[in-house]
């Protein structure tokens, strides 16, 4: 099963996926399945999730993101959430959801550079 809504691009050992504007439940769950398959297939070491376009992360979506990160970690890959909007960050913090255990970066570029850094 593929999730055409969220294409996953491979760059060497890195998988990059851009989440769409609306994170509806079904799309996120399909994406989690697809991503775990791709991590297994490609032996990716890092997954960068571009959330630049995501306008709302509620507690359900936050839980899904944490589960995706946990699942990737079990498969030997780390997940970096890149490009969270400041309005989403403020809202998540007030919800009491700091996404523990999930790495973040200012942008996809930052995420990729950090990986290449010393």
């Amino acid at each position, binding site marked *: 099963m593929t999730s055409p809504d969220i294409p996953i691009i491979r760059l060497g050992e890195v998988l990059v996926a851009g989440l769409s504007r*609306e994170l*509806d*439940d*079904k799309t996120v769950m399909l994406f989690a399945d697809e991503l775990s398959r791709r991590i297994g297939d490609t032996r990716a070491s890092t997954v960068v999730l571009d959330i630049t376009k995501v*306008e*709302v*992360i*509620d*507690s*359900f979506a*936050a*839980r899904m993101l944490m589960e995706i990160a946990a699942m990737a970690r079990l498969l030997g890959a780390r997940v970096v959430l890149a490009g969270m*909007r*400041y*309005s*989403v960050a*403020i*809202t998540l913090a*007030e*919800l*009491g*959801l700091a996404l523990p255990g999930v790495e973040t970066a200012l942008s996809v570029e930052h995420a990729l550079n950090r990986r290449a850094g010393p």
Partner: protein
Amino acid sequence: MTHSDLSSTSLQTVPIHTEEDLLTARHAVRAAALAEGLGLVAQTKLVTAASELVRNCYVHGGGGVLRIERVLPPPRRGLRIVVADQGPGIEDPDAALADGYSTGPGLGHGLGGARRLVDEFELRSEPGRGTTVVITRWTA
């Protein structure tokens, strides 16, 4: 405080019966927040709070309705969201508002979190008769 007093005008009603309705409800709240002149952070907080409430309504309440109202009791103006279901109700509202409390597929931050994201929050629930949550964000 009631949500049906003369000082509020109903702007829009969105039935909550399918998962797609959750998105429709979010879009309606976003559009209303934008139209009322809320800033980006305030919009995002209100839409996120509404998203928590309509998900509860759908998952726990068996569906219901979201109503968007404009509140005009001088000198304040605001946007009010009413989410009502006729589901099983909440046995212990205080416990349900505590972080970490969950009977569903969430993190248990939904209801308490929604309360923190808005200016006013009212929860009415009767076991066996449903739940109504009213949230208000002042715009002026």
